[in-house]
């Protein structure tokens, strides 16, 4: 196969020649270097021992047994995540447990990784939730493709998708397991254990909802 570009002959970079000098006997015997290394180690040893006896430094043997441990035994123990940590997505619920999502595809449009797939549908005639007009029949996120930028959350006009679970995608053993579906994301809760959000909604049928019947006029 031909090269895409013609190969250039090697050019010196910052051309200053390397000067090789003959090592002295002292260098080649390694002894002075060993001695200086030992001296450094021993100085640290005596320094540490003195501090330990004085009580200025914790005992490395008994330290793990005490409170105030400095090593985090992940995954049994976890550091607290920051307030706005973007964890795996959850779909928030309405009061009746159905998804708040109206399948507008704003998240899918905003997603730079194109990892969100939504099929929109309508609740059938006679369903109590008919007035919600539009809902996601299928809502799938590929958590492997997701780059956790949070644009979907920003784009959502309904506060239906959130990344406040405080959890990150668990390591699974196959790719299929990273494909999160609607039911799974609906089952996730926020960090304070809620399926809903603080933002209220006026559902059709509520007293707060203005009502949409032709008979009113």
């Amino acid at each position, binding site marked *: 196969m031909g090269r895409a570009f013609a190969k250039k002959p090697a050019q010196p970079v910052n051309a200053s020649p390397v000067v090789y000098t003959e090592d002295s006997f002292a260098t080649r015997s390694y002894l002075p270097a060993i001695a200086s290394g030992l001296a450094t180690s021993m100085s640290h040893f005596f320094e540490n021992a003195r501090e330990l006896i004085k009580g200025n430094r914790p005992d490395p043997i008994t330290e793990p047994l005490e409170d105030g441990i400095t090593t985090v035994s992940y995954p049994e123990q976890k550091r607290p995540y920051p307030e706005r940590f973007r964890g795996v997505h959850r779909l928030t619920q309405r009061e009746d447990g159905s998804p708040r999502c*109206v*399948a*507008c*595809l*704003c998240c899918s*449009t905003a997603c730079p990784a194109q990892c969100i797939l939504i099929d*929109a*549908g*309508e609740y059938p005639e006679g369903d109590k939730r*008919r*007035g919600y*007009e*539009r809902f996601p029949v299928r809502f799938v996120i590929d958590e492997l493709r997701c780059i956790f930028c949070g644009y979907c959350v920003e784009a959502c*006009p*309904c506060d239906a998708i959130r990344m406040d679970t405080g959890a990150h995608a668990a390591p699974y053993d196959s790719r299929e397991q990273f494909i999160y579906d609607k039911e799974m994301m609906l089952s996730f809760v926020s960090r304070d254990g809620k399926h809903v959000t603080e933002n209220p909604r006026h559902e059709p049928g509520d007293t707060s909802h*203005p*009502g*949409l*019947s*032709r008979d*009113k*006029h």
Partner: protein
Amino acid sequence: MPTFKLDGKEIPFQPGETIITAAYKHGTDIPHYCWHPGLSIAANCRMCLVEIMPAANQRAVMLDVLEWDAEINDYKPQRKPKLQPSCQIAATEGMDVRGDTSEHVRDARKGVQEFLLLNHPVDCPICDQAGECKLQDYWLEHGQYQKRMRDEPIHKPKAEVFGPTIVYDAERCVMCTRCIRFMDEVAHDPVLDMRERGNLKEVIVAQGRQLEGHYTLMTEHVCPVGALTSKDFRFKARVWFLRAAKSVCQGCATGCNAWLDFEPRSNKAQRYRPRDNEQVNKYWMCDEGMLTYAQAHEGRVFEAKNKGKQTTVAKALDATKKLLGSVPHESIAIVLSAQHSLEDNWALVELGKLLGTKSVFYTKAADGYEDKILIHKDKNSNSAGVALASPEAKPFSELQNAIESGSIKHAISLGGITPKGEADQGVLAKLEALVVIAAHESALTQAAKVVLPATSWAEQSGTFVNAKGHKQVTDRALNPQGSSEPAHTLLAQLARALGLEPSWSKLKDLRSKAGLADAAPSIVPTTSTQAV
């Protein structure tokens, strides 16, 4: 041609034409909702107001108005010119019309926009029109204000089912009456009307009636906002994900021009939209035709078949060679299709010439409903094309007779939609060898020994000749589905398999040989190909 000035630009017009029509024909869009080039003038939306400068010897009509002045915190008397609806005023020679350049017009547009959106639910996220909505476009161009009304907007019926195809949302409606005028003037079925007044106004269907007939989907397409949505397209896709290809409706011999909107990511056709063509369909399409986009996926032949079993195209061609290789070439009949493009039919006629056969037949679907508006009784998109490709081709019934009498035992067929459908299979079983190159399942593909999968009109550019003789080119929209290939390439391969040297290899060769002008494909984002 006389001209008038619009924002300093000279615009030619036919005597009697309105300002907006002349501007539209010239390619300049004056913002409008209720005006439509194919409908009567309503002049009720007030969006197309323009300032017409008085002639040299006349005074301008001025109105006394009160304008809010924030500095003195009170209304101040002002005089403003009377603006006029450009959809209703006929253009006259040398008229000086100001649109974008007039401060008063810009003010008025903003005001109209605010008024129309006063009670609008702003439910764009769940509205199918979002992305191709005039309310959105004009808000961006002429509005850009924050909502000032703090009251609860008026609520009106939502998701009202108007009929088997259309759902109405009164809250989104701007009462332009385009749908009412369309049903009245074009479909000649005045089933829609309005009731109430002011902000309680809504569109209703006549009592005891539904919005039904052959032109209901068109009401959705004339609707400039999301008030009318089609049940077929409802919630199926967001328009900004779609691309549009210039296409021709496959429903009948009228050959209505259409945009075929498809989703490139899923390689799926999603809808047809009418494409303006003054000579063929004007601005309209019928319901049946508009739903033929689904034939790009339904009832398709995607894989090659040998004796009913799925196989590869190469193996199917080998089987063809075995079937037809030892047969005298001139005894093989060829069967053209009124549902495939002129290029494909032309390639088969060429193959027939190479074979030296005199038996040329064609298949077409049975005649059906017709009306005086658009719908033609011939339900094939390319009947005239077949007549053009081979004037001496005989109908399917004669092929049946010939098979019955035993004079034809071998046939190569393109397509194969027959008048009676499955019921036509009977005689075909008598054929010793039938090779069918088809995009859709039919009686012929059922009876065929070998079936080769051809691309449909949506996956390949082709020419279709309508009943009036217009040669219309469709653009490729989708990628070929399954193992389908253009029928003319399959025919070329078939010719080679039979030891013949085809005279065509590319669509371009075919077109130049068949005397068809080559049309460049033009796939464009849907939002830039909006209807008026």
